[in-house]
């Protein structure tokens, strides 16, 4: 029963949001017999172009709606990071569909001339059609930057924001063209609502969020330097205290800090119950985080959240494996501290701390100290430089009853992907694997 509930929780969001994008296709198919849509090659291409445009715009809207980062998504998608995962999937498919939209429609010009085809692809002074050209051009520039150029988080985030403009132009294009959307009042109404929802979500996240999104004000009261690269920041509430579960993450913005003064996601590395404080542990990854040591005591910060369903407390199975790759150890720091406080002897947990070499494990000593007071808790340190990449075989050798355990993975995406695949091929159900990537882009 619990398994069914978990599967349901993981698919309800994707199914609901996918439906939103498929409904226009149903309207489109209902408008005319399918035979008339696909009677010959050219007409079929034109029809495919129309579907691509309709589906692409709908998915673009859905992707924008998902980017609003509201609390509801945390439940609908079983963790807001999974909502972001779907945001990326929908966005990528929308981009591909919208690229195919003009390509399929060129078929119309084939019987005329190459000149007519070129004219079709370029702006020609007709507002409705030209808006489509500008929307797609802007989208290509921004998404090629996002997907294929490695930008700093701040620049990436600023450039990503302009996608809302591309969406606005694309939405106008779809409504101004004399197309199926203009002809079918239901389809027109639906697309107008979807485009407006997309724009509302966009404005909510980019502009209105400044006033509408609830934030907790905290102040930096202590810095614990673990190594040259890893620092823990202790933050104390100046007003209302944020409630959270060990393993969750927040978005935080430090005032008068960082060039773009942007908000960034960090896992909370302490367990709840420390009066007005919580901690984040930050590793210098060469981007925004490289300035973290310069931040001064007393700096005020706004925390938004908490988000995520990544916590041992969301699982009923008390036999667990935790695997933290690099700075992905941070949610486990909070969970370990929580375990100490819970003092529940039924738990059997093995924690794997995986990095390239031992110098990248400055938190190992702290973790060891904490595990001493907990029954049935084992800590393994794994260095890929000596032992090769961490594998399920390696874990199977060290941990008993692997098949009866729930797995918690946090770390770089390739590590999670590889381990997930290995666990599944060992026969573990997907519903027993909880993961959190350190990538919300």
């Amino acid at each position, binding site marked *: 029963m619990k398994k069914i509930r978990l599967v349901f929780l993981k698919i309800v969001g994707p199914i609901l949001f996918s439906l939103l994008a498929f409904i226009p296709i149903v309207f489109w198919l209902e408008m005319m017999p399918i035979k008339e849509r696909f009677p010959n090659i050219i007409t079929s291409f034109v029809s495919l172009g129309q579907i691509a445009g309709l589906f692409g715009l709908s998915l673009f809207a859905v992707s924008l709606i998902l980017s609003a980062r509201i609390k509801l998504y945390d439940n609908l998608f079983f963790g807001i990071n999974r909502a972001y995962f779907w945001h990326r999937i929908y966005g990528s498919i929308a981009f591909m569909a919208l690229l195919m939209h003009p390509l399929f429609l060129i078929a119309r010009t084939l019987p*005329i*001339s*190459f000149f*007519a085809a070129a*004219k079709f692809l370029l702006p020609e002074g007709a507002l409705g059609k030209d808006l489509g050209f500008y929307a797609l051009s802007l989208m290509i520039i921004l998404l090629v930057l996002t997907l294929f150029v490695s930008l700093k988080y701040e620049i990436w985030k600023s450039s990503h924001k302009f996608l809302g403009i591309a969406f606005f132009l694309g939405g106008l294009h779809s409504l101004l063209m004399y197309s199926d959307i203009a*002809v079918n009042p239901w389809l027109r109404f639906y697309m107008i609502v979807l485009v407006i929802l997309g724009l509302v979500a966009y404005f909510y996240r980019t502009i209105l969020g400044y006033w509408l999104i609830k934030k907790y004000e905290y102040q930096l009261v202590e810095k614990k330097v673990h190594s040259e690269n890893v620092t823990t920041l202790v933050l104390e509430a100046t007003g209302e205290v944020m409630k959270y579960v060990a393993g969750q993450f927040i978005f935080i913005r430090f005032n008068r800090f960082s060039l773009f003064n942007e908000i960034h996601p960090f896992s909370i590395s302490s367990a709840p119950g420390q009066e007005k404080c919580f901690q984040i542990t930050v590793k210098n990854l060469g981007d925004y985080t490289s300035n973290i040591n310069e931040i001064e005591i007393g700096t005020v910060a706004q925390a938004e959240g908490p988000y995520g369903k990544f916590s041992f407390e969301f699982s009923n199975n008390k036999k667990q494996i935790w695997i933290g790759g690099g700075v992905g150890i941070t949610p486990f720091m909070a969970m370990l501290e929580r375990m100490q406080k819970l003092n529940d002897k039924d738990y059997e947990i093995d924690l794997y701390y995986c990095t390239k070499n031992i110098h990248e494990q400055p938190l190992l000593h702290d973790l060891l100290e904490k595990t001493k007071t907990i029954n049935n808790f084992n800590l393994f340190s794994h260095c890929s430089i000596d032992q090769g990449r961490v594998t399920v075989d390696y874990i199977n050798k060290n941990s008993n009853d692997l098949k009866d355990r729930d797995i918690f993975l946090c770390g770089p995406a390739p590590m999670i992907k590889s381990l997930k695949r290995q666990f599944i091929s060992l026969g573990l159900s997907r519903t027993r694997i909880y993961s959190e990537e350190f990538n919300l882009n």
Partner: protein
Amino acid sequence: MKKTVLVIVILFFIIVVTVLLAALLLPSGTLLNSNQKPLATNDSRVSSSSETNATNNINQPVMLKNISLVEISKHNKISDCWMSMEGSVYDITPFFGMHPGGNQIMEKYCGQDATRAYQTQDGHGNHSAYAQSLLKIYLIGLLK
């Protein structure tokens, strides 16, 4: 997913650049020869002279004849649809299934003068220059 997106982006640019280059080098060239041009949705339609003209390329000289509204009114269904617009007569039968606004929009003007509907897009605005160039391939005569 990223790789698939990359493939589509590359494909997009290859096609766009090819089309633009083709337009520069062979502006009047076409990809399909006249026999493969838009096909009628109903192959059984019989309209001897008009069919020959409708499949003519705009770049080739076309023998246009004068056609009366009475004659146009005989071609009043999807499988055989003539209409006059701005003094010219078109056999738009092969265009059914390709109009972005759907077949219904055009169907109601089969056998009639559709000048007003064409100019105003039934009250929605103007047809683009592209649409006008597209129309030329369906020209069969002038309104008598």
